[in-house]
């Protein structure tokens, strides 16, 4: 794989900026900024877009209730709009967090107000979105938390372009009881056959269960196959996973785990279209300090993997790419 580096990035939690691109390659960015009192756990969602002249538009705040929104994601929808989602805490106190959405046009205009589509979310794990049927069907994944602080992942499905969602479907009953912040959410991808692929980290019911897991739904999100272990934890550590699905229905998974020197590195594995054949685990990083928070993108036949490396106070973003066979078999 070829590589590039960019120095000066900050490591940290999962609440980072997200970017989406339109078909004409315009960039749209969302991020969160701390609220009035500087509290980054009571934040606001900011939005800016490529102005077509080499700069970005002035940023504006999307959440209508101040100091209540974090973990934004943004996607361009197949029907030519932008969908922004985030975890909201405008209903605070003992109730779990809510899932809020907002739709924008590709010109950046608001097409809807903020609206709630779910509740019971873990307060600090990234969200995932996939689309089908030209954007009429929308799948979202998130980590839920119940009254006993047990955190499992769920799929939510909409068939009316994210206007409303059905009851959440549990992906697997991991049973991870934890009172603190995993900051490690699920990822979802959809293949050409309509199968939904999900990856996530859990500690499960004991440290021996901890690891990166994968599951698939072959009935459009009604149910999920028993989870498969992609790689077990090598030591106690919260891991971070992400996935992408190729045109050939191959699934690419990237995640972090500790190496033999107790440093976090990035690993990659693929699952063939048959859903049975796993590649060996490949280590992508050789960080002196730690590597974490991988992201994947698959464009034509280029697989791009980026992650953050930290070593003391030094941090950087590393990008590696590889040419892959991404054509659907005839």
């Amino acid at each position, binding site marked *: 794989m070829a590589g590039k580096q960019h120095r000066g990035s900050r490591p940290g939690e999962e609440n980072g900026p997200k970017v989406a691109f339109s078909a004409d390659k315009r960039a749209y960015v969302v991020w969160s900024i701390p609220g009035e009192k500087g509290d980054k756990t009571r934040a606001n969602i900011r939005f800016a877009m490529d102005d077509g002249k080499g700069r970005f538009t002035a940023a504006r705040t999307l959440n209508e209730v101040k100091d209540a929104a974090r973990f934004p994601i943004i996607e361009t929808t197949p029907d030519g709009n932008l969908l922004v989602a985030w975890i909201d805490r405008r209903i605070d106190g003992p109730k779990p967090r809510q899932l809020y959405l907002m739709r924008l046009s590709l010109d950046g205009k608001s097409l809807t107000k903020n609206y709630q589509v779910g509740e019971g979310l873990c307060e600090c794990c990234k969200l995932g979105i996939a689309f089908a049927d030209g954007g009429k069907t929308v799948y979202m994944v998130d980590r839920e938390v119940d009254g006993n602080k047990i955190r499992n992942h769920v799929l939510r499905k909409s068939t009316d372009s994210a206007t409303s969602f059905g009851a959440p479907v549990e992906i697997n009953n991991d049973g991870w009881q934890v009172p603190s*912040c995993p900051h490690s959410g699920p990822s979802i991808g959809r293949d050409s056959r309509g199968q939904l692929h999900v990856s996530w980290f859990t500690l499960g019911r004991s440290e021996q269960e901890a690891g990166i897991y994968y599951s698939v739904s072959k009935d459009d999100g009604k149910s999920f196959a028993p989870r498969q272990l992609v790689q077990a934890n090598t030591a106690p550590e919260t891991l971070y996973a992400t996935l992408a699905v190729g045109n050939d229905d191959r699934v690419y998974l990237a995640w972090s785990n500790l190496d033999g020197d107790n440093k976090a590195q990035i690993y990659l594995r693929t699952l063939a279209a048959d859903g049975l054949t796993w590649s060996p685990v490949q280590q992508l990083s050789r960080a002196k*300090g730690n590597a974490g928070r991988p992201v994947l993108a698959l464009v034509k036949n280029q697989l791009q993997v980026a992650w953050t490396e*930290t070593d003391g106070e030094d941090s950087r973003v590393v990008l590696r790419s590889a040419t892959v066979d991404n054509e659907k078999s005839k």
Partner: protein
Amino acid sequence: MLTAVKVPRLVLAVPAIAFDLKSVDGNSVGLASFRGKPLMMNFFASWCDPCREEMPLINDLAGKAGKDGYAVLGIAVEDTRAAVMQYAQEAKLVFPIALDLNSTVKRAYRIFGPRDVFH
């Protein structure tokens, strides 16, 4: 003879794992400097919701530490110096904070992530 008695997340009569870190001010902070008194170590991050929710209690305990003969040490994990300093100022934290920038102490204590408290 000491006998180890295990309770959830707490093992008594076992030596704590030694460490040497830098504080947010750049000074050395080692476990050895707390020898001779009970020490509460709070593993936290500035971005961690439950950490922030319980911090007033930790800070209150730290405020009484000198008088009551124990010590409190914050160990910031998976964070940056700037973010920790900003949070410490904003929350008016009164205890020393060490930076575990490479997660070496977090891993030695087998902590999956913030938050966690050892004493």
